[in-house]
């Protein structure tokens, strides 16, 4: 494959990143999807809208988030200097709020009265419920019954924020099924409802729209590392479920050929078992939830259940732009198992006093491996995409502790 002049040009007007992406949705949704695209394109170029978004990100979310030098973690690894981009310090405790602010302002601009969302770990559900409370919009969050079980604190938070949490029992009761159900609701309520998608997946324009609202992570990182180190990092690391925190960090660095970029997929019990969530490493291209992308599927093209200890990574697909960057070999995708993530969770908590989300713990585990292989004058930036308070029950269970 020829190397393109830039990796930052996508998607094309059909919403494609190479062969990935597109608009594979039911006809009922098409007029609305086109309307979302038109409105997003207008808003993107509207200084007033941009000022509104920036205002909320600064005053409400608390941006910019710090770029923190993790000194004790670095010492422990004994190699490259490791920085954490502290998205866990955002209001609601993860990067998800960045895109929620942007999307809800767009929904308001379009005159929509009701917001729906899907959620896995509950972080996107909480962020969505939060912005709905902030703007006084009606909110329904679809969440798999299995995920509701393992993320009780977030379920309660959403309810406190005034959202209706609708349990989804179809399939394995996880993120994929929640997304199916959200799409069904949307088809039935197109006239007044905006679907606030939590990741860089779904039909065009969602992958590009969510990336545009998340790329502030990478833009800030660039500025901050130049300030602190006077140069760009050698390596970027972020966990990938759908992949919005990763796209947010990676995008502004895609054309910096010297920056090595690593996305971390959740290997569950191991990528060589039936229980993992490595769509790129263990899947093949297919079409689901409005886009073509790498998917976990059987020989007949039926979608398989993913597995990860982290509800936010428990999805059999991945954003289409990641599939493109994988095929183009611009970004490497590695796998971290449940156990490695649990170990990294504990290590980071003890060494840095930062409790990382189980999702982000996958990136921390990869950083530990990478840092050891690198020299002391090299720099790694890890996206600390969320905080782990919500995961305390899961970790206790994994450690065999009864709370």
């Amino acid at each position, binding site marked *: 494959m020829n190397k393109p002049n830039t990796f930052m040009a996508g998607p094309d007007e059909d919403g494609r990143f190479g062969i990935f992406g597109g608009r*594979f949705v039911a006809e009922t949704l*098409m007029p609305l999807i086109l309307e979302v695209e038109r409105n997003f394109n207008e808003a993107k170029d509207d200084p007033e809208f941009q000022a509104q978004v920036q205002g909320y990100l600064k005053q409400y979310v608390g941006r910019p988030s710090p770029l923190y030098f993790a000194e004790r973690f670095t010492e422990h690894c004994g190699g490259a200097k490791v920085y954490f981009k502290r998205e866990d310090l955002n209001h609601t405790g993860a990067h998800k709020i960045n895109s929620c602010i942007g999307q809800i302002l767009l929904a308001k601009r379009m005159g929509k009265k009701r917001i729906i969302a899907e959620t896995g770990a509950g972080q996107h559900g909480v962020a969505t419920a939060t912005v709905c409370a902030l703007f006084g919009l009606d909110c329904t969050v679809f969440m798999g019954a299995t995920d509701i079980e393992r993320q009780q604190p977030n379920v309660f938070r959403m309810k406190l924020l005034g959202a209706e949490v609708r349990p989804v029992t179809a399939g394995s009761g996880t993120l*994929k099924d929640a997304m199916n159900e959200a799409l069904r609701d949307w088809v039935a309520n197109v006239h007044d409802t905006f679907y606030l998608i939590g990741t860089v997946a779904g039909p065009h324009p969602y992958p590009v729209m969510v990336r545009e609202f998340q790329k502030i992570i990478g833009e800030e990182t660039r500025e901050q590392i130049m300030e602190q180190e006077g140069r760009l990092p050698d390596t970027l690391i972020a966990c990938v479920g759908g992949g919005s925190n990763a796209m947010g960090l990676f995008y502004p660095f895609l054309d910096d050929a010297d920056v090595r970029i690593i996305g971390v997929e959740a290997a569950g019990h191991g990528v060589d078992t039936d229980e993992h969530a490595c769509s790129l490493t263990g899947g093949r291209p297919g079409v689901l939830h409005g886009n*073509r992308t790498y998917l976990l599927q059987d020989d007949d093209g039926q979608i398989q259940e993913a597995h990860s200890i982290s509800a936010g990574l428990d999805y059999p697909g991945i954003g289409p732009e990641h599939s493109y960057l994988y095929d183009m070999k611009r970004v490497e995708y590695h796998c971290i198992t449940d156990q490695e993530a649990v170990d990294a969770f504990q290590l980071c908590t003890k060494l840095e006093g930062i409790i990382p989300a189980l999702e982000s713990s996958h990136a921390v585990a990869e950083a530990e491996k990478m840092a050891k292989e690198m020299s002391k004058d090299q720099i790694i930036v890890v996206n600390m995409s969320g905080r782990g308070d919500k995961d305390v029950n899961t970790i206790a269970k994994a450690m065999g502790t009864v709370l």
Partner: protein
Amino acid sequence: MSRIAKRFDALKKEGRSAFVTFVTAGDPDLKTSQELFAGLPEAGADILEIGMPFSDPMADGPAIQLGSQRALANGMTLKGVLALVADFRKTDNETPIVLMGYFNPIYSFGVDKFVVEAKEAGVDGFIIVDLPPEEEREFAIPAKDAGLDFIYLTTPTADDARLATIASKASGFIYYVSITGVTGTASAVASDVEAAVKRIKSHTDLPVAIGFGINTPDQAKVMAGLSDAAVVGSAIVKKIADNLDENATAKDGLVEDVLSYVNELARGVRAASA
């Protein structure tokens, strides 16, 4: 002339609308499915819409979701769907067959290979829910190039410009989704449908079928009276579910019960004056 065009022509001469039945291939199992398909034309089905089961049927309500799950649990595959069609064609070379489903299993099978094998099996057309006109290069164009119909859905959310686009790309017939919602979750409103059909007809000479919101023989009668075809899916699939035991296997008499219900619906359609 294709089987679909022939059938609509013949019915036009009879002065009535077509009755289209939807049943998922392999629901609840291969053998029952074979018997159902074989019996549908005699029970009054003019066109068979056969569901290709998919793990994630985003545009379907609970009834068809469950039907899909039953078929997959009993081992139905895309190859199996084509084998069922080929089997049906051994005794019936007239009744049009339209496969309905989602794109991923076809994409996984290989589009070109699938078009060839579907044609060989005796398939006449396709309804692929997640392939709007914007994605026509994926499958609609290859299917039409092979002489098979690609039936587009149109919905209450389409404006005139979109209707015109769909009409220009459609073949076989146009399928009007009469509710904004997933299959089998609401009932169509006659006055809305009447206006919609009129609007669609101003863009095309193709027959217009009504579906997604027909749940009873009476509704089938009303909708058939307003259009060229009435499609019933969820209600028939529910009838299958009613005839399963606690292990989700077919009880004795399932086929007879479902076909007698289909016949009731068919009489509704025949009673309509189109």
